[in-house]
């Protein structure tokens, strides 16, 4: 009989080719979230946090069967070749091979671990855990699952939002079954679009376009490159640093949760063909989008005509 006692789950965080941005994103979460996390999850090793035990000792304990753990969090891209990427003096290739059947869950945190991201542009052997961009040619074989039966769970984003990381791990540790999308990302976060909740939504609806940066007014989609309606994230639902989001601060969404983030270019302008956007919001045909925006453009929403501060409606 298995014990019914709910054990505090344990976690090991390793990194590959990374800027550590996901670690710092994680550390920038709210104190409420972070404390809940620390109370629920025992961090056996994190390269920036733990001090009492070296990774080599923990690693040895695991390999010798003396230590079990639940979550293997991987930050950063990895290599399909041995001897390329190191963590605490060990080849990440070997760490992954040795721990892949020990961990209950493997979580790829950030776009590098999920899809390879920018580091994969430099070298063919650099990959994410399951994907290389949109190809299922990552480090693990297609169909790989961990002890829990789940595939690698991708918490994509450059970086991933702290709440996506924390809530994914907490949900799993509470025993919730997380539904994943085709890129193995939790639907709870990635079924939304960055557009959802953007403070500039009215401008999108009435096709009032921002033509230059530096204003509170105007939608950034038509001219300034915003990927909000094409990017899966909750950036405007669960705000960054509890305060804001890129689009709220007038910066176009650059689509950093998607596999093609490093493959695109000209992040600050929308690709137009004869004045028509090449890509339109997800889920609608270009015909529908053009018709609808033509109609919206015909009417004037007087509230949105000038400076918002001056609007008296």
């Amino acid at each position, binding site marked *: 009989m298995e014990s019914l006692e709910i054990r505090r789950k344990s976690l090991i965080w390793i990194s590959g*080719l*990374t*800027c*550590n*941005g996901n670690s*710092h*994103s994680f*550390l*920038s*979460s*709210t*104190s409420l979230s*972070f404390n809940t996390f*620390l109370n629920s999850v025992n961090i056996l090793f994190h*390269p*920036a*946090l*733990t*001090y*009492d035990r070296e*990774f*080599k000792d923990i690693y040895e304990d695991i390999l010798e069967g003396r230590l079990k753990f639940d979550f293997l969090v991987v930050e*950063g891209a990895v290599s399909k070749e041995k001897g390329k*990427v190191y*963590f*605490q*003096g060990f080849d990440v290739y070997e760490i992954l091979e040795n721990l892949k059947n020990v961990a209950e869950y493997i979580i790829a945190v950030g776009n590098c671990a999920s899809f390879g991201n*920018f*580091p994969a*542009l*430099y*070298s063919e052997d650099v990959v994410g855990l399951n994907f290389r961009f949109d190809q299922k040619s990552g480090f693990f074989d297609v169909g790989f699952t961990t002890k829990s039966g789940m595939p690698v769970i991708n918490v994509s984003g*450059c*970086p991933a939002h702290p709440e996506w990381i924390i809530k994914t791990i907490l949900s799993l540790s509470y025993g919730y079954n997380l539904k994943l999308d085709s890129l193995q990302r939790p639907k709870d976060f990635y079924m939304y679009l960055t557009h959802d909740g953007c403070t500039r939504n009215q401008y999108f609806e009435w096709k009032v376009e921002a033509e*230059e*940066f*530096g*204003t*509170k007014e105007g939608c950034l989609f038509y001219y300034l490159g915003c990927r909000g309606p094409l990017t899966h994230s909750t*950036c405007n639902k669960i*705000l*960054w*640093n*509890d*305060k*804001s*989001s*890129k*689009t*709220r*601060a*007038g*910066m*176009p969404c*650059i689509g950093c949760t998607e596999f093609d983030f*490093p493959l695109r*270019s*000209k*992040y*600050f302008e929308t690709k137009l063909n004869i004045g028509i956007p090449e890509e339109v919001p997800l889920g609608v045909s270009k015909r529908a989008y053009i018709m609808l925006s033509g109609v919206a453009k015909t009417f004037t929403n007087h509230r949105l005509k000038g400076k918002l501060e001056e609007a008296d409606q």
Partner: protein
Amino acid sequence: MKKQISNLSLNRVEGEVELKLQKDKSGVIEDAFITAHNFRGFEYILKGKELLDALVITPRICGICGHSHLTATVNAMENLYRENGFNIEITQKVKMIRQLTQCSEIIQNHIKWFYLFVMPDFLKLDSSEKYVEYRPFTGKYWKNALNISSDIVKIIAILGGQWPHTSYSLPGGITSDPLKTDLVEALSIVDSTLKFVESNIIGMDVESYLSITDYREFMNKTSGGSLKDFIELSFKNGMEKIGKSYGHFITVSNVYPCIQEAVIKKKRCKFNIKKVKELKESSSYSIVQPVRYDGLPMETGPLARRLTSNTELFVNLNSVFSDSYLVRVWARVDEIVRILVNMKDWILKINLSEKSYIKPKDYKLLSGESFGLTEAARGSLIHKIEVYKGKILDYNIITPTIWNLGPRCKNFKGVAEKAIIGLDSDLKAQMVLRSFDVCSVCLVH
């Protein structure tokens, strides 16, 4: 006893770094080699890209100082406009906001580094209950430090959308157009961080701290706090005597009024970008090329900034304890105070009626070379771009960590390498290395 070699992989640093120590028979370190792994190839990735793509790519070199990379990129681009004979106008409002957000990132860094990376080392030297609040995960100081470091970056989120990895600054200005109430929120974050610094770190009000000119005066005036704990622990463990390097310092740009650019060799002189050289020499143990100023190794970072800015307290500390572990760490903690106290002024100076962005000419008209300089958390950061008709031909990045942790050349050992030689313990070697605030992701990038 035989000669020994220790290979240490460091944790509580940014990234993956290995320290190889060569010791004599008595265990004294004769030589030290710093090796960083995990090359990502950013300079190669940038080649051939559209110029403005760098605004998105370079911040991703580093998760803790990405804003500084953004600033260096923007500075290089704006300088390129000037080199091409185009006027590029940046409003005072934009200058203040950019400086404010970048300095928020620096404070975040320093607080995290001190409490998460530096203080836990002392727990290994002194396990007494007195320091229990510095313990990772459970200690009050440790937890407060994380809270405060995530509070201060909220200023970046309010003005630039998010931290880490915003690209809200771009040639011609910034993307945001803040509200007055946004500034009020930023002000209250600065205020509460100042309170934290006064009560948790320096143990006195900021004005009193800024009037202090030597360490005895500090010890007499402070009512207690982490800086006092640190200084006591340092003296107890002889950290005021170790960790000394060449005593050459470099600061490449100004942050008015708290950071002044200058170079200190034998004496203080003006910084000249032409004297910065990345040597072509490659060493057997490092993939990084050494960088020298006028042929000399240079330390960069908060200690350098205090000395090039002629801050009396540090001129005095340096004359007594020279560039030791104690002084280097103190300088980084000190910088939190000196920057924070100015941030309030900067916010109050922002005139919101000025423009956030003045559209410059099409970047496709730009060709040629330019530099972008800035002061990052760890010191001087230099980006050099070569562009042809708006496409990047070459992108070269000299990070602070290359100055401090880069390898030896045929004439000189690296700055941190030299600081480690002569020590007799692995732990202290690691501590000295951490005093430079190691960032191997920036080192190899």
